[in-house]
């Protein structure tokens, strides 16, 4: 599966076990990876309009000898930090902060690494009042215009539009025990069954594991995690992620901007072409 590093093996985990690993409270979060990828990381704050969204960390660091913009959803470790980070659920200000840093990267020609780990955008009244729908919409549209390489990695939960708002990139990779879904299993169960306790069945039908997404052609690579999961060895998990991110970023760094943007357009414009060729490739329930 991967050309370097540990080979991705068949999994014996159930879909729900993968969901629980993706949400594991000891799992490395964005800052755990960023500080290992770029030890000189400097965090930058604010959307320059009204606020700083702590659910998204952003900043610059030296990565493989090159100044790089890092963005990542950040969950909290302690209860206090979880509240402060809003469980990694961004408000509109977060998407504006991300775009501000994207334009910053474009100005200086810095590549962008985006780490995705969110249950979704914040489903609260304040986010609605300040235009979360339009903020995500604008972010998704603008990513297609940022003329520097972008590599995204889902490191835990890739929840719905809140994740995709940070997930338009030239390459998208996933950690082995991460998930990426149209809605959280709970939300999907609530929509389809009107009963969010049907989350396990929903998760099984959604095809949301890293292996499912690789098979659908939605992500380029699944990055193997240390035995037992990324939380067992932060350093080893970060090393493998670093290697995979750089392997994907390297060819992009040499591409002219117009080629880069055209390929990014085509990546998403024809993202469903594989499944049309081969429907029913991953049946789980009969």
């Amino acid at each position, binding site marked *: 599966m991967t050309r370097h590093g540990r080979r991705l093996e068949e999994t014996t985990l159930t879909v729900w076990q993968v969901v629980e690993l993706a949400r594991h409270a000891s799992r490395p979060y964005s800052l755990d990876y960023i500080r290992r990828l770029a030890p000189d990381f400097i965090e930058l704050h604010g959307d320059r309009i009204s606020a700083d969204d702590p659910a998204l960390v952003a900043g610059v660091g030296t990565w493989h000898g090159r100044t790089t913009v890092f963005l990542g959803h950040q969950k909290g470790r302690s209860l206090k930090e979880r509240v402060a980070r809003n469980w990694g659920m961004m408000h509109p200000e977060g998407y504006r902060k991300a775009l501000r840093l994207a334009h910053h990267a474009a100005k200086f020609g810095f590549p962008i690494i985006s780490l995705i780990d969110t249950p979704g*955008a914040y489903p609260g009244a304040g986010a609605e009042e300040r235009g979360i729908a339009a903020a995500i919409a604008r972010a998704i549209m603008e990513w297609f215009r940022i003329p520097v390489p972008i590599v995204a990695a889902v490191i835990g939960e890739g929840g719905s539009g809140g994740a995709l708002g940070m997930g338009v990139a030239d390459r998208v990779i996933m950690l082995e025990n991460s998930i990426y879904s*149209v809605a959280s299993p709970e939300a999907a169960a609530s929509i389809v069954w009107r009963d969010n306790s049907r989350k396990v069945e*929903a998760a099984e039908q959604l095809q949301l594991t890293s292996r499912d997404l690789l098979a659908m052609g939605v992500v380029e690579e699944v990055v193997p995690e240390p035995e037992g999961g990324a939380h067992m060895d932060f350093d080893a998990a970060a090393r493998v992620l670093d290697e995979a991110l750089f392997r994907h970023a390297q060819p992009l760094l040499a591409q002219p901007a117009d080629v880069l943007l055209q390929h990014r357009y085509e990546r998403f414009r024809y993202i469903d072409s594989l499944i049309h060729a081969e429907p029913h490739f991953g049946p789980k329930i009969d």
Partner: protein
Amino acid sequence: MQLAKVQHEVRMAGAKLPPIALPTNCPGCGVSLDPETLRKHAYVCECGHHFRLGADAWIILLADRGSWHERWGDVRSHDLLNWKVPKPYQATIDQLADEGLNEAVRTGTCTLGGRPIWLAAFDFRFVGGTLSIVAGERLARGMEQAAASGLPYLLVSASGGARMQEGVLALMQMAKVNAAVGRLHSSGVPFFSVLTDPTFGGTAASLALLADINIAEPGAAIGFTGPRVIKQATYADLPAGFQSAEFQLARGQVDMVVIRTELRRLLAHLLEMYP
């Protein structure tokens, strides 16, 4: 409301609107409804309540008579993920097709007040107007062609968001469509969006709010997360009118709230101002 004007507008648009499923009494004012009178008034009650229209009705309402040329109507959804419970997805879409519905988005070319345009209309009756691979494909192709041919793009939305039964591929339609929205804007063609009740989730968070001019119907609910989920997640008490068109106007997300019977005249005028 000026009913005489309403009749004139609807007649000008083309053929009669199709019958729609209506309650006995208006949810806005409680008056007992006469379907035939309502149909002549574009399904707007005298109290101002706007009943939801399907894509077929929107096409009749907005396209000049005989000008509608549907595109990619033969591209149909099918069950790609083998979705079985609580209801097989294939059975859901087959049943809707038997009822004469053709996906959550229909698109094509027409003229409006004599001006050639691209028109795309969501249909909430088809799995809640949800964004699917086929819906996304019809939207993206239409926008690409509008950009290439220089024709204005008109969108009428009514959608619950992305379609669960197509999984992450439905989510990816937001990116697919917004890639095309960006190119539509770069091409310089005008893009007008009419947001109707309800427009939520992945549709609100992709193309619906990104137009040059966003127009909402009175009372339409527009937002990202639906009120039921907000209450579940945050235990918040939401005030009356939360996420209404008027709420979104006050918060800067839409340019205007326009009664349906005035819409055609407004769009015809805009198409003259943005050639």
